[in-house]
């Protein structure tokens, strides 16, 4: 079931939570809405679910070409998973999962069917034998899996997840998102999930919708948004980045005493520009070599981790960060105050000062 959102806006008082947003999610996709808090991602998800109404007259919404904008949340056929699980605390795990089947007004299934279905779902979310427990007897990860089973019980056309792993600790979060990805590959239900964690979005989603201040900044595959960010915001939001002020002049870009060729000036940038370099695209050498490089002094070294993070200060007092492999670090003998030569391997340039 595809989702088609056209020109949706939402205002809370004077705050514009969504500003003319359009988005299409294809059938069977797993899409991430990624953005900082206040970017409108949760509002968009709640509007899709019908828990929130778009501003009057502001837009349209279709589930597989069927207009659902005016349909009540209970008739939309969506499964919704909340950040804090929102399990029914007075019901056992079994009753929680069975809820959606028990409240059906038409074609309510019989007891045997409900039992079979619930136990099957509990197997799917790997909670066999937990049917009799109460929510307060489960860990966070288990609760979220119950919430997922409960949402899937009504066979939703669309599955919506609001920061589903946001309340879990780092390790469980990683396990659960890998698991969610596999589950989606099995079920193929059209899914949209909200997150502010770029790693989560990059790992789990087919496509990522990057949002900022109620608008969509970029829609693309994880590769697209990571390697070809469309805006400065996307560049900043998807990982650490070094920022320089520079100037574009014909086929070259000049920043921080460096003059680099800039042939692929697709956006026709002229004059003041901002230059971005990811830390892992900053190479360090102890010798000058032949290519243009910046002279810098080592300020700090963090070597605990898969990559070594080196904080540098250039002669013009510009701070930047480089990430190099442990092997490379071992060959270089870097210490605070040692002089090194820094070379950006890959830069991105956006217009503006």
């Amino acid at each position, binding site marked *: 079931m595809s989702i088609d959102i056209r020109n949706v806006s939402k205002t809370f008082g004077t705050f514009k939570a969504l500003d003319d947003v359009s988005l299409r999610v294809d059938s069977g996709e797993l899409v991430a809405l990624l953005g900082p808090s206040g970017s409108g991602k949760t509002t968009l998800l709640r509007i899709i*679910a*019908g*828990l929130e109404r778009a501003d009057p007259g502001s837009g349209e919404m279709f589930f597989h070409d069927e207009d659902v904008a005016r349909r009540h*949340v*209970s*008739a*939309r*056929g*969506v*499964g*919704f998973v*909340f950040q*804090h699980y*929102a*399990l*029914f*605390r*007075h019901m*056992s795990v*079994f*009753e929680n999962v069975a*809820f*959606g089947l028990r*409240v*059906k*007004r038409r074609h309510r299934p019989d007891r045997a069917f409900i*039992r079979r279905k619930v*136990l099957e779902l509990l197997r799917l979310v790997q909670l*066999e*034998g*937990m*049917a*009799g*427990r*109460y*929510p*307060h*007897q*489960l*860990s*966070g990860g288990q609760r979220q899996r119950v*919430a997922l089973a*409960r*949402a899937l*019980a*009504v066979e939703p056309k669309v599955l919506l997840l609001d920061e589903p792993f946001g309340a879990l600790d780092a390790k469980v979060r990683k396990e659960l998102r890998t698991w969610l990805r596999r589950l989606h590959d099995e079920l193929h239900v059209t899914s949209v999930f909200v997150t502010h964690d770029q790693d989560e979005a990059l790992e789990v989603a087919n496509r990522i919708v990057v949002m900022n201040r109620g608008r969509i900044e970029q829609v693309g595959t994880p590769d697209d948004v990571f390697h070809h960010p469309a805006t400065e915001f996307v560049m900043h939001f998807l990982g650490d980045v070094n920022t320089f002020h520079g100037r574009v002049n014909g086929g070259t870009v000049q920043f921080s005493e460096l003059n680099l060729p800039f042939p692929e000036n697709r956006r026709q940038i002229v004059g003041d520009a901002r230059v971005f370099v990811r830390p892992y695209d900053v190479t360090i050498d102890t010798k000058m070599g032949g290519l243009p490089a910046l002279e810098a002094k080592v300020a700090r070294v963090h070597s605990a981790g898969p990559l070594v993070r080196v904080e540098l200060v250039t002669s013009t007092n510009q701070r930047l960060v480089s990430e190099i492999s442990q092997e490379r670090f071992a060959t270089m003998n870097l210490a605070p105050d040692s002089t090194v030569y820094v070379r950006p391997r890959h830069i991105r340039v956006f217009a503006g000062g």
Partner: protein
Amino acid sequence: MGGNPASHACSVSPWGIAPTSESAWTRRLLIGTALAFLALFLFLPLALVFVVAFGSGVGAYLAALTEPDARSAIRLTLVTAAVAVPLNTLFGVAAAWAIAKFEFRGKNLLTTLIDLPFAVSPVIAGLIFVLLFGVRGWLGPWLQANDIRIIFATPGIVLATMFVTFPFVARELIPLMQAQGTEEEESALTLGAGGFQTFRRVTLPNIKWGLIYGVILCNARAMGEFGAVSVVSGHIRGHTNTMPLHIEVLYNDYQTTASFAVASLLALLAVATLVVKSVVEWKTARNQAIAAREVAEDDEGSGSRYPMDLSADPVGVHALACEPTLSDTQHAEA
């Protein structure tokens, strides 16, 4: 039930006492003072009521309760509570629901208005109704022309009681419902439940304890209210005297034993209130355990068995803190 078992042993100061704890003597003194205060101002008067009530023997006690004026007062009190309590329960749930789960203009005003009966002296509450419905009141002439009696009759007593008792249920529920938020209701809606199904299956079970406690308090006050009812009742013996009014009449007639006998009934109500509260709490906990066991047994066919082992589950401990707890700061009035 569980507080936080952690963090006592680990945060020991150089003197071997946790920094937030007091010395043994200070603790004993504080607990002793609290108990002495309770004994002097709560337990002693309560005991005294029963001592004086039975002072002239059981026969006199029963006679005081069964004479016609006493029976009429008891009946009127029961009728008043039977009307006021259900209506205020309905109102309280509706108001708490509106305030806790929705945003709307005038919400603060509504919250303040609910508190009004607590802020106004009950005598004033009674006078309001006299000014409205009395012979010389706003609606008095019209009521008289249509032969409807409100003041100095049962309807006035019921109205005054309702006014005085209407905050109890709402006040008990509002913080509880606000703390629980709306996510469970939203879940139910996305799962296809209608508004009433959501209320009956999700909201009501979650507020059950608070609701029952609110109703108990409301009932205790409805039966015990003196001031407001005194103003609108007219003190017609055998007709418009409720139990508290009847007690006063007897007391002013120097019938001490009889007045204390009737008073003992109201005191019993306070004791019953506490008993009902304890039973409710105990039953809810037990029902939950039984339901859990049944489903667990039901599951045996499908694979593994999970004994309900709370003590081994570290998550269970912290989760108890999320359960609705009744505020212990309020006491039923007798």
